[in-house]
């Protein structure tokens, strides 16, 4: 598959096809991460995060690849991992981020906090919000999928989940300022 085809797959949400084309990057990601204080689980996680960023980047109409896709993806991985290491206060001194891509600008300010706030939610809340915002399911379908009595309950539940996530966010942000 050519880089262009992979980008096209990402734009059309054909995840499996796209990953078929990008999967061969994973071994190098594993080596890189495990050689730099990470575990293979970290590697898988960072690889997924990188795919998310690539996906989001690829959605932009004016997206132009400035390097081979594999290199580009590796650059994202590297920068994400440096960011993560910094977060864990384990930043090595001689590391320089790749200038191919600035991962911090993709998600906007404090997105880490939002992600953490989201992950702190209960399983059901996470499922509900993913179904609603990512899968674009109606409340009726969500009610059926998650065993809520009816649409109204699902809607109320969603409201509560958002509310809870916002509270989590604020708690986390005060804690990080302390």
């Amino acid at each position, binding site marked *: 598959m050519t880089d262009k085809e992979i980008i096209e797959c990402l734009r059309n949400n054909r995840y499996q096809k796209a990953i078929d084309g990008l*999967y061969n990057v994973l071994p190098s990601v594993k080596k890189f991460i495990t050689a730099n204080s990470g575990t293979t689980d970290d590697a898988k996680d960072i690889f997924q995060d990188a795919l998310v960023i690539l*996906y989001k980047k690829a959605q932009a109409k004016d997206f132009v690849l400035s390097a081979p896709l594999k290199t580009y993806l590796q650059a994202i991985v590297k920068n994400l991992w440096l960011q993560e290491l910094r977060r864990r206060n384990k930043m090595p001194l001689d590391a320089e981020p790749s200038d191919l891509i600035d991962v911090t600008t993709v998600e906007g300010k404090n997105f880490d906090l939002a992600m953490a706030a989201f992950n702190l939610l209960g399983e059901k809340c996470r499922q509900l919000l993913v179904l609603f915002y990512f899968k674009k399911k109606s409340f009726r379908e969500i009610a059926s999928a998650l065993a809520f009595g009816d649409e109204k309950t699902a809607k109320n539940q969603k409201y509560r989940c958002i509310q809870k996530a916002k509270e989590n966010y604020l708690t986390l942000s005060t804690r990080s300022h302390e």
Partner: protein
Amino acid sequence: MNNNTEQITRYLQNEMSGEERTAFEKQLSADKNLQEEFFIQQQIIKAAETAGLKNEFAKVIRKKIVNQRLVQWGIPAILIIAAFVFYAVKTNLFSRHSAKENTESAEQFVISNADDTIIETRDGVVFAIPAHAFNSKSDKIRLEIKTALNPYDIMRQGLSTTSNGALLQTAGMFYLNGYDGDQPVSLIKEINVSVPAKEINPAMQLFDGVEDSSGQINWVNPKPVENRLRTYDITTLDFYPPNYIPTLKALQKNYANKKYTDSLYYSFSGYPLYIGKRTYDMNSADIIISDNDPERNEIDMDIGNEKDYERADTSGKKYDQLLKKDTAKETPADQLGTEFYHYEIDPARIGSIWNEKFNNTILATKEFEERLRYMHGLCTAEYLNAYLEGLNYPMYKIDQLCADNSTGQIRKKFLEFAARKDGRVMINEGLQEKLSFYFQTKYKAYQQAAAETWAKHEAELARLNAIADVKQREQAIRDFTRESSNYEEEFCANLSEAYRQVGIKYRCNDTIIPTPPASNYYNVTISTPGWKNLDVFVNQVTTNRQTGTYTDSATGETITLTYKEVNIHIENLADYDRVFVYLLPDGLNSFQRIEQKGNNFKEGLNSLFRYDAVALAYKGGQAYMYRQTLLQPGEYSFILSPLTGSELKEVLKKYSNQQSADLNTEIEYRLFEQQEFVRQMQVRKDIEFRQMIEYAIFDCSEGDVFIRKPAAPAKDSVKSFPKK
């Protein structure tokens, strides 16, 4: 934080009116706190989207990893085992110590290389040797076997129990070599050896013996010894999701009847995650694929015999290709958004392995049963697939493989499983592939059978719905026609009466009868101005069915049209599913249905008519009736009794042709409606039942959510990506 979640949600989801929107935007631009809250909410939504996207990627990657690992890992595992035995055979460790001892303690066997052979030594060590295990053209193979299980034997044969200088605790040693005549032959297949033991120590390992420079045997290359698994009749094991039978039990269903529980369970194959998609309001019911079902028998006939195995063998298709193709088709990962299935284990998968074909495999063990119960709660069939594809591997290796490909709690659980060192069940050469093929074929057949039964069921529901739709439409037209002609007739009677009271003879046909109020225009032409209001008055009275008085301004004459209320109470109203009360006025061609108001049926009776009343009620499939002749204004209480067809005919005879025909049609329709009502109730009950079962079967309690692990200690510098 101020609580503006609802407002922000409504704004973001475009649920605000234009005005509200503008107001909100204005507030937003002025209020700093609101701005922050707005931003946070947007970020949370983005987080949800990102988490969903990441889950999708994680799923695809996990699938790929499992597939790849299985292919990679199969080949070296076999090589290692073969290499070890080969090594021991070649070095002939025992024999080098003393030729005399050698002949004394060695047991000799001659076996046929073309057959499977089981040998038990004097010490009780059992060797299971598959056909063609030795690389020899000759059929007769001479085996030399030595065993040393107790310290005396070990010392007598001059064997050490050290590994690189450290002492070993031994559970016994054995030696095996094969000869074609005097020539040693190598092993090309794996031999299973069982060494008797009083108790099993899970830490026990298998070592290879090599001679070091001083001629001592050093035990090296330890490999874990697996627990042999005991197999059971697979049909006596429980492969259902853990909540399934308890749910049926709680619902007081026949949970002990396996035929019933199986067919109900398998009917959930390929079940969409939300029900509304296939049929919107009348969806699922209890689909039973019974053994009497011709389709099912076809399946059994099609794939249940040996011929199919042969076909599989000669087709030249590798089963793992088959598997890959199948998994690719099954996971609609690249068409997400169009389909939305349960990610858990498809019941058809269970159906295809839960039968005697898989007896004597790792699947027919309590150990697998336990794992399967856990795997039902995972949101993917990946793990199950690993066990199915690894039928001829020790179970702990598959446990380990599953652990390697998961994180967090799931990883922990599989590591726990792996630590038990549960081993394998010996399985004949080639059987694995046959079983895999069988599994795939059967799996598809079950899926297809479930899909077909489902489609049939839905088609039948759709057909019944269509019939009900047509009947409902016809009834609506009849109601409309009857009500408008009733209105016209009653209006006409009232108008004639009004004219009569002012001394004018009038027959309805003299004038154009105003169309019912819904038409919005009156076509009445009267010569004197005073009478213009008359029609409006009569119209009002007829519509409201209440007594009205009208004084003509020109003549001073007063006209009165009288309606008096009747109030009918039905005994035990709540006991019936539905109740209808009809009036049969002598002045009208058809009947009139009284609307139910609260617990009573109230209507104004026109003093110009004489009325009979008929009350009909339905409960289940039974109709009930009461008739009141010469109904007078006031209070009534009707006690209904069960209705027979002939009784109804008798009653209807008493009325005009038109009235009895209309009423008959009405009753027929209501009877149909009642059946339809009963059917709908059943359908709804079925839906609820199936939903409960669905939640019991598909229980993603161990979600896919990624749990970030704590960091490993930092290293000095960041190394660059490995170059190719």
